[in-house]
């Protein structure tokens, strides 16, 4: 485990051990805020920021903290970074901060973060923990963004609405709209839509994994078969 290469860490974080699609951690904020793509992206980036900082810090102090008190210490570290993130968002992304509301402070309780601190950062070097935090965070953000985008398109017929809250006035133009008379499937924006959407995304990931496994198996088998086929031909 400790000897896994960086390539493996990144691949695990983004895909194989994606916290939202495989570990199913951090579902509360994931399901609650993904009614638009921008909300998902905003919370995802905030979570990534906290994850990178907390992973690195936990890894730096991993030899100083006694195992008996490690969990409270991890929580304190995470809470400090969440508070800092919350204050910065309040200052610089005030509109987004108002929309995400309680879910920014609730990043503290995101089990993906304490999970990575306990399972990875407390056993690995700071650089590896940083890479792990970054890839896990980006994997999580990707799911939030895709799920938010799907729910937003199905539910209200737009994509990247309120982009100005995050990227400033210039980004107002990137909002896409399906059409004025589009009657959205309201349930997609409501909580049940989040569960349905996440379920379909997990199914999609499993299908993709299955396909690639078949392809890989076919590729390893085919060289053995080729000479045989050649003789028959």
């Amino acid at each position: 485990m400790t000897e896994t290469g960086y390539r493996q860490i990144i691949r695990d974080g983004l895909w194989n051990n994606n916290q939202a699609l495989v570990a199913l951690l951090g579902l509360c904020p994931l399901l609650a805020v993904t009614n638009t793509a921008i909300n998902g992206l905003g919370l995802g980036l905030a979570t990534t920021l906290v994850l990178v900082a907390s992973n690195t810090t936990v890894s730096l102090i991993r030899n100083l903290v006694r195992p008996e008190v490690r969990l409270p210490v991890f929580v304190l570290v995470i809470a400090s970074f969440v508070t800092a993130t919350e204050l910065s968002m309040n200052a610089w992304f005030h509109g987004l901060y108002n929309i995400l509301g309680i879910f920014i402070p609730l990043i503290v309780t995101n089990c993906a973060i304490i999970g990575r601190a306990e399972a990875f950062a407390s056993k690995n070097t700071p650089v590896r923990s940083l890479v792990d935090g970054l890839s896990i965070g980006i994997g999580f953000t990707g799911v939030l963004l895709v799920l938010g985008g799907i729910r937003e398109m199905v539910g209200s017929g737009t994509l990247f609405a309120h982009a100005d809250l995050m990227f400033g006035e210039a980004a107002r133009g990137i909002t896409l709209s399906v059409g004025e008379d589009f009657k959205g499937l309201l349930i997609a924006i409501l909580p049940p839509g989040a569960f349905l959407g996440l379920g379909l995304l997990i199914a999609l990931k499993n299908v993709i994994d299955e396909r690639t496994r078949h392809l890989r198996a076919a590729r390893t088998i085919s060289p053995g078969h080729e000479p045989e086929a050649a003789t028959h031909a």
Partner: protein
Amino acid sequence: MEFPAVSSPHSALPNRVSSVMLRVILALIPGALAMTWYFGWGVVINMALATVVAVASEALLLRLRGRPVTATLSDLSAVVTALLFALAVPPLLPWWLTVLGIGFAIVVAKQLYGGLGYNPFNPAMAGYVLLLISYPVEMTAWIPPIILNEHVLTLSETLRVIFTGTLPAGLTWDALSMATPLDAMRTNLDLGHLISEIRESPLWGDFGGRGWEWVGNWYFLGGIWLIYKRVISWHIPGAMLGALLLLAMIFHLLDPETHPFGLFHLFSGGAMLGAFFIATDPVSAATTPRGKLIYGASIGALVFIIRTWGGYPDAVAFAVLLMNMAAPTIDYYTQPRVFGETETRND
């Protein structure tokens, strides 16, 4: 006295899924005819459209899942789902909503869970609730029954409304549509009117809304035939209607001017259709005799609670889905003791 000798086996009819489903369809005929009589061609068009979409999507999903297509389709369960769904939605529902609702019912609520026998929720009600939550305006645009209707639409006009959304010249949705009895009762009560005032309107018949109560009667008849043929047992409909009636009567006695009398609840909205045809779905309902009583009574109680204090005028779909979730637990705690088994349980 003579006893005719009958050799074993004694079972008269093979109790197959397809014969059960066929009988359910037969039992729906009187109610469906009454619906068509009172609410026009839209009911027939909805049933036809829903059946076509249900069978097509079931066939597609069975193919994708690598299951036998024709053998499974011939169990008729998709048709039953489609008919129940079509009888629950408003007669002039736009075609794409019917397609969306029944498609969701078959694809997500039934086949993605593993097909008939594995679905935890009643597919027809899942599709109905999806539409009710997402498109509340379209899903509450009911037309008045024929005896109150000044603008009876012809077949071609109905087709045009459903498939293109264009109303006949000179008509608006406001002139064409009318609140259901449950909706009207609720709105008037919210406005502070007394029941004796509300019931002076020509909308009301003896029990529920005029026209509506007769549809309920015919569903009741079909349901009694199903019980007589032992396709369903009396437990679920009896407990559901009993609980609904009892609660409604208690509250009516406490305050007759703000709570409509008991039979109004039975003969309004989806109560009759729900009690005999939807709550009795053999897959998603409780299965033990005692469990069926608890399950049915809970649905009846939930219907009354949501109708009286909830956010929607009717509640059969929500009540059935909520109790679908509870059905496995009810079954677990009401398992009949096997003969010879002792009191101790290993749990």
